[in-house]
């Protein structure tokens, strides 16, 4: 039942890799099952959820709908690539988007979030100061079942704020009023 094998020449997170895989395999399968890059998740395998989002030449694509053989020679960025790229660029630790997601509580189960963070990263690379509507629209292809999206927006807002000096809006639960029975 093995499909015909092919040797693929891919550029993943800055590295040139050569990998043999059945020619009908998707990029998601090659990443997860050949290269051990399991940070890209499979939520549906048919283009509905966005969990498998990776960046192709900097643009978000669904790796479950992308045949691996069609991305030869193009730059693929997975969630595993963000921290090393940040460090290589002189930063410390995780990419500011990843760090903001963690600091804002956006990572509940986390299963949707590698795709979500890559969509956010791509947006900020293209437009470092997007409006709330632009953020919503950019994330509309990534389903999250845990958060209700609020803390995701707050995380993106924090990342924007730290890059631009803007002040994030206060969160509803940060009121100064006592929380006890009134």
């Amino acid at each position: 039942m093995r499909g015909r094998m092919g040797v693929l020449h891919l550029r993943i997170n800055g590295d040139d890799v050569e990998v043999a895989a059945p020619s009908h395999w998707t990029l998601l399968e090659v990443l997860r099952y050949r290269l051990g890059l399991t940070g890209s998740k499979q939520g549906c395998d048919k283009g509905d959820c966005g969990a498998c989002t990776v960046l192709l030449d900097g643009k978000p694509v669904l790796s479950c709908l992308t045949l691996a053989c069609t991305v030869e020679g193009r730059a693929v960025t997975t969630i595993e690539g963000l921290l090393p790229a940040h460090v290589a660029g002189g930063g410390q630790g995780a990419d500011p988007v990843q760090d903001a997601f963690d600091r804002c509580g956006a990572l509940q189960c986390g299963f949707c979030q590698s795709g979500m963070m890559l969509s956010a990263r791509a947006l900020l690379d293209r437009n470092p100061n997007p409006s709330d509507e632009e953020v919503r629209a950019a994330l509309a292809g990534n389903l999250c079942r845990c958060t209700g999206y609020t803390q995701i927006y707050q995380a993106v807002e924090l990342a924007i704020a730290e890059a631009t000096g803007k002040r994030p809006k206060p969160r509803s639960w940060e009121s100064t009023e006592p929380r006890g029975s009134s």
Partner: protein
Amino acid sequence: MAARDRHGKDAPWGEFAVVGKPLRKVDGLAKATGAAIYADDIALPGMLHAKTLRSPHAHARIVSIDASDALALPGVHAVITGKDLPVKYGVIPWTPDENALAVDKVRFIGDPVAAVAAVDEDTANAALKRIRVEYELLHAYLDPRESLTRHDPAIHEGRKEGNVSKNVLLEFGAIDQALATSDVIVEDEYTFHGTTHAAIEPHCAVAQYSADGVLTVWSATQITHYVHRALARVLELAPHRIRVVQPCLGGAFGGKSDPFSLEFCVATLAMRTGRPVKMLYTREEVFYCHRGRHPMQMRYRTGASKDGMLRGVDAKILIDGGSYSSFGLVTTYYAGQLLTGPYAFPTYRFDSTRVFTNKPPCGPKRGHGSVQPRFAFEVQLDQLAEKLALDPIEIRRRNFVGEHTTTVNGQRITSNGFLACLDQVERASDWSTRHGKLPFGRGLGVAGSMYISGTNYPVYPNKMPQAGIQLKVDRSGLVLAFTGGNDIGQGSNSVVQYIVAEELGLALDQVRVVAADTDLCPVDLGAYSSRVTFMVGNATIDACRKLRAQLVEALAAHWQVDAKRVRLIHGEALDLEDATHHLPIVEAFHLAEERFDTLGATGSYNTPELGGPYRGGTIGASPAYSFTAHVAEVTVDIETGRVRCEKVWIAHDCGRALNPMLVAGQMEGSAYMGVAEALMEEHTVNRYGLHRGPSLLDYRIPTSVDTPELAALIVESLDPEGPYGAKEAGEGPLHPSIPAISNAIFDAVGIRLKHLPFTPGKVLAALAERRARAGEPTVAGGAR
């Protein structure tokens, strides 16, 4: 030490260093960087891939199965069927009616029939096509009303109740008399449609059977302990030869609470082949496995006096259980037992009946059993308020059950911040100037609810602790906490980390957590019924206090001072009265290890005796209840019938927010899910029992642009028995979203929607009916 000790609401060292702050999660960066390992990320050398053959019929007898062609396919290593796994199981020990693979008959489209292990998924899928199953079709029950009266053919044979899965009839006080003497009665019918969890991670399990006879199963489960017990039962293996591990979990919401077919299949296939085996469900399979929210048809009759005081509530509920029992016994009780707050009513009767149908099995979904009745009752309360010309918030305030009290069905309520919740949403939504006064097409609605923080009914009867924890203290300054609790994304491992750091005065990076591994961790009953923060939190404090006493004693002896002067905070040990006495905490560990030998501690929690003195009285009895109030704001487009929820204000009494950011995340996620159930989602089958849309495109869960603005408002009532006063926050805040939206639609356009979901078709029909009643022309989009 008695596991029931209460630890008090206060900070262990006078002022909280960790608790109450919006800190990172213990596993946040691992998740952020893609390093966290989920079940499907596990790959073992030589691993085979397994697939399940499922029934194409809703109800049929299996005449024969021939797998010889499948076995002959190169790359196929094993095929198993029901004959290989004949022992029945079920999460509730009284109702074991499931087989890992169907034995003799199938009961819904999607019921597992056979499983194949092969070198890869493609081969396994090809092998499935070569399995020949001959079926003899049986009458399929798709309408729960039919299952009430017709029992032949039975969906489960040999039961004297036929197709009735469970009936509970409980009566408290003289309900008929109370209703007969009420000034006003509201009586109506309500429908809850049925929804599913749709966690983004599909179910997945991996098994390995070692040469020395130890079976390890990694599974995307939210209850490791019950999977462990079920595997031992079905595989007829001694439990100590089985290890169950929950890797990082990609969402659950109740949908990973049952033992699932795949766990038994991978285990059997691994034992059969001598190779590790993985099975990953497709998204379509996840929809069929379901265990989602039960459809309910509900009739409520509520009586009140002229001033709006409730006199009695009479409920009759028909529950569509789908094809298996699952948690159904509990569902049937919860449908009645959890309605008796936050409002007091002196008399109550509920008669709830769960029936089997030939549909995907229902089970627990966030707010198990009580979301549906809550919807019905909160709409009915608004109908009552309308009749009496009372403000909907006012009628809820008037009927407040109070704190430190007992409900009509004998449940003990401790802390109760419901009035503060009402105040908060009233103020935040500007209710008094906006409710009833917004332009036609826009409206506000309110609803309230209560929910359990765990229950004292352990799924299998035993007197052992419900939660246990073990601390290992390392000479490096690290404390490792071992908990059987399941972190399913809600952050329970982080709660353990925060509490250990708080109690022992450690920096967060000095505490790591090992969880949900039955070999390594003490038993915990798992992530359900919103029990984890309350119970695991209390167990953690229990263990820490024992360890702390040793550290303090060792330090006091070292400095030759009274133990009361010793304080542990921010990674340091201090003497309150002598500034020259201070040590890094790691040295306190060394002093204590010299004095007491190898350090470590265990802690546990069990509930006090709770519940009314009647059969079923402990089901729904919780050591503490959370309370919630929502106001939802909607707009209704009378041309298209489309309802949009614009904003939800969510006020929730969580006792104490151990981390307000994580509490807010639970509140927002809950409200989002409720809004989706009200307006978008519907889990239904067609007339053959085929799912109407088993994909994340057809089953419409909200995207970022569909989700309303969510404002979480935290109320802290400081519960006397919760860890530092904490109660649950993960399920309660879902309940009011749905009725609040119905009530808001009434405020917006004057129609009372009682049958979920609130689709454009239902809205248009109700608008037309309203116009007809008012004698207006019935053209859509006509005069207001």
